[in-house]
């Protein structure tokens, strides 16, 4: 068994153990959850640092037949696209479990659901068989519904729980149709990306089929990421979810959709890439500009974070749409950075909500005085959110802009720069409103002891470290991104601009 399999296995085992622990030992529930996510964090860190830098292919591969009759395998492996996400996925799981001490009812059930989400998301990141990628990702659906409904916030959380569940399932099902289409029509009778890639090289699908399948995957997985105009589930859903759920969702689950596009759609369907990237480039401006604009008008801290996270996803899509080495590397970098950033934001807002009982910006102010640690972390997170150098998100956004410049039309580039400006406006205004200014008589206090600070620090410190030394990530991402670009541009259609080919040159 590969070390990788531990990542989904440990949390799910932990969930089963928690189910069996009798209520008399209820303190053990949280202990087991923390222990499992903690061990998982160690495993992920080991994987991150033992990963062989400079290799584009899959490492630590394990392959077991699951349903041999129809060509489905439990095939796992890690490459540059997933190694960083695995690390932050484990980090976010650990931090989310830690902050869940706020849960006071049905704790057993809560930790079981949280561990199932964690195991599922890590499982989908290591899957090289697209069936399992989908399978693991869907494990989060029911827990999300239950968590928002049982422990969520706000009177309308029931409606929101339904909205997020139905929206995400529709997206997932559309993606599933795309995946099954790939499975059924390629003739390879497998959903294993390695086999499929080799097969499709010699037996390419007709261009029209590729276009349809790519469209299904793009809008299906895109919905899971919050691609405009299929994004409206996200801010409301995160605002209604309990802290840990919002952290897992905004932090890492959301990235799985974009990750799946990089795993499946881009390398396997080059004709589809040629047809759809222009449209993707326009749609992602919807995220960057429209969602950014909406974020400016928000008067609730969580809705502000939710919309700003959609704007960041716009940059991820922009990087994908550039189909260039530096653009895709940047996109993965943003995914990693934003996982830390978004979960940090929701962890902080969770603390503020717990202490003050609301997240209305108009009733906030001077938080820095009452909660110096939380306030400082919040300022750091919000600065990272508007792309200040020194945080990992800056490196990613910069790389995406470099990638976009030569490959996409000038107005897209200009609009993306405008998006950066918008991000600066709402984040700085948010900082002024929440952290500084007169104390409006908020109640509540800071994190009382140093142990309480751990979940925030395990998210904030890597965000800064990766910002100072982005090469740690870039060196790992680059060779794998180069393979994606190479395959995505395998057969440039005559209509496609000549520029991407130039941009892809360093890949060879």
């Amino acid at each position, binding site marked *: 068994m590969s070390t990788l399999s531990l990542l989904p296995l440990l949390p799910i085992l932990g969930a089963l153990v928690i189910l069996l622990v009798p209520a008399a030992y209820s303190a053990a529930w949280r202990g087991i959850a923390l222990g499992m996510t903690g061990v998982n964090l160690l495993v992920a860190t080991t994987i991150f640092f033992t990963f062989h830098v400079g290799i584009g292919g899959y490492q630590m591969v394990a392959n077991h037949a*699951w*349903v*041999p*009759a*129809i060509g489905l395998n439990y095939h796992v492996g890690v490459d540059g696209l997933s190694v960083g996400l695995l690390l932050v996925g484990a980090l976010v799981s650990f931090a989310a479990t830690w902050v869940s001490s706020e849960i006071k009812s049905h704790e057993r059930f809560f930790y079981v659901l949280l561990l199932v989400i964690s195991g599922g998301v890590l499982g989908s990141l290591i899957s090289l068989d697209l*069936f399992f990628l*989908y*399978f*693991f990702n*869907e*494990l989060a*659906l*029911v827990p999300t*519904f*239950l968590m928002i*409904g*049982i422990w969520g916030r706000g009177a309308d959380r*029931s409606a929101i*729980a*339904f909205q997020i*569940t*139905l929206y995400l*399932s*529709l997206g997932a*099902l*559309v993606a*599933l*149709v795309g995946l*099954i*289409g790939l*499975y*059924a*029509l390629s003739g390879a009778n497998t959903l294993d990306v390695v086999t499929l890639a080799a097969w499709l090289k010699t037996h390419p699908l007709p261009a029209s089929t590729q276009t*349809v399948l790519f469209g299904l995957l793009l809008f299906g997985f895109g919905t899971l990421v919050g691609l405009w105009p299929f994004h409206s589930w996200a801010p409301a859903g995160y605002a209604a979810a309990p802290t840990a759920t919002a952290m897992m969702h905004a932090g890492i689950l959301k990235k799985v959709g974009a990750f799946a596009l990089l795993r499946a759609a881009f390398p396997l369907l080059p004709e589809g890439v040629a047809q759809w990237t222009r449209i993707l480039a326009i749609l992602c401006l919807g995220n960057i500009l429209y969602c950014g604009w909406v974020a400016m008008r928000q008067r609730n801290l969580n809705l502000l974070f939710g919309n700003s996270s959609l704007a960041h996803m716009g940059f991820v899509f922009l990087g994908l749409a550039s189909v260039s080495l530096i653009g895709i590397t940047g996109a993965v970098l943003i995914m990693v950075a934003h996982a830390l950033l978004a979960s940090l934001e929701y962890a902080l807002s969770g603390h503020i909500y717990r202490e003050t009982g609301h997240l209305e910006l108009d009733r906030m102010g001077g938080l820095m005085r009452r909660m110096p640690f939380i306030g400082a972390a919040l300022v750091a997170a919000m600065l990272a959110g508007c792309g200040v150098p020194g945080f990992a998100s800056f490196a990613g956004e910069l790389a995406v802009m470099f990638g976009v410049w030569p490959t996409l039309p000038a107005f897209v580039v200009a609009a993306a720069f405008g998006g950066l400006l918008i991000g600066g406006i709402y984040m700085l205004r948010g900082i002024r409103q929440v952290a500084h200014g007169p104390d409006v008589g908020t109640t509540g206090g800071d994190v009382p002891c140093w142990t309480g600070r751990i979940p925030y620090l395990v998210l904030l410190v890597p965000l800064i470290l990766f910002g100072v030394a982005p090469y740690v990530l870039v060196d790992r991402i680059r060779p794998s991104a180069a393979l994606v670009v190479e395959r995505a541009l395998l057969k440039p259609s005559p209509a496609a601009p000549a520029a991407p080919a130039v941009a892809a040159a360093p890949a060879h």
Partner: protein
Amino acid sequence: MNSSLLAIEFLVVVLGLGILLADLWIPSGARRGLAYAAATGLLLVLTLHGGALAPGDDTAFGGMFLVDALANYFKTLFIVATIAVLLISSGYADRLDGYGEYVALTLFALAGMLLAASANDFILMFVALELVTVTFYVLVSFQRRRQSSLEAGVKYLIFGALAAAFMVYGIALIFGSANTTNFYEIASRQAELGKSPVFVIGLLLTLVGLGFKISAFPFQMWTPDVYQGAPVPTTAFLATGSKAAGFVLLLRLAYSVVPEVMARWSHLLLGFAMATMLYGSFAALAQRSVKRLMGYSSIANAGYLLLGIGATNVTGSTAILYFLSGYVFTTLAAFAVISRVTVQDDNDDISVFAGLGNRSPLLAAAMTLALVSLAGIPPLAGFFGKFYLFKAALLQVPTSPLFLVAVLIACVSVVLSLYYYFNIIRVMYWPAQDAVDRPVTVPMAVGISLAACLAGILVVGIFPSGVIGLAHEAVAGLGTPAPEMHVQAHHAAAH
């Protein structure tokens, strides 16, 4: 003639008669024991079916009765479903006057299903289905003191008679044009017969009859009323055994008897499939009666299964077998919970589920698993079944883009179904003010059947390999032309 092939059917009928006799001596308080005895007997039959009595592929009664891998697969499924239904019904015995007869009739219905799985002739098919349907008339209206149960029985009687009339008329036309009712003989002449309008109309009318059985749109109107009115164990049996009996015959017709005609009708079948799933899902949205909701859900599921019939490829038939296996476990688990939660006040309004997460966490978790599997979410059986059916349909996309449309419509239906399934989960878990704080009792027999069904959902879902292997073997013989010697033998036997 080789009547030893009917050993299983024979044993089941004898068991039923034995129960009827024993009923005369058993005091009314101990009638539950009859269900346990019947279930144990069936367990024995199941072991024999898999072991000592496992018959090789052969025919009996002049080619009317056929034993092959497909028949054996479905027979296993029917017996398993009946055991679970009997155990569920044992917890319901107080509400069923003359419970011994209920058990015996359930066994007779099972005998009809077993015959249907082996039917190789339109006549036997009709007789088998009538045996199932006629016993169900009684099983549906078994709660004689409850008006809704009687009403459901009358409705089922009227619609069942109508369906039988359609089917028998269709069979007459088929016989008139083909001069035979044997499946093998028709299969060998399907190219010529497919051109005869009389034959085609006859076939269509037969399909209408089967459409009633599987509750496909537009022949579904009896389903919600009957599901709601019938006693819960009967509803569970209707949703699993009776539906699967319709599907085994549909499979045989579509894949073995007249595959060429069916391939021509793939658009028609897809149309029925799309209408069925949309109708079922849209109508279920507004339901408050859980049994009625399960009725509409059963319609929607018939729609997904029809996708597999429309696909007319091996993946489609395998997928139908797999899906039905998972569906039987899932539906029975759901009905086992429903039977316990609704039994106290004989009320199946969704509000009786309020607060079940606190009142009985295990039952609530079991119901959640069943509903999540019905909704088709990994890692449970329902997900892989839909995955497989969708694949079967998408394999046909090169022949017609309508298959892609049908699969996308199925996705819409699945999302709608998430709403009504998750609505029950919401009622069970969301903090509720008006929840009755009354614990739900689960008798041991019901608990065993529930646990077995849940294990089935999980095992079939997480390790589909075994069931798929069996399903593959079961459908392998479908569509291959009838062995020549058999056809000859039937002629000899007929004259």
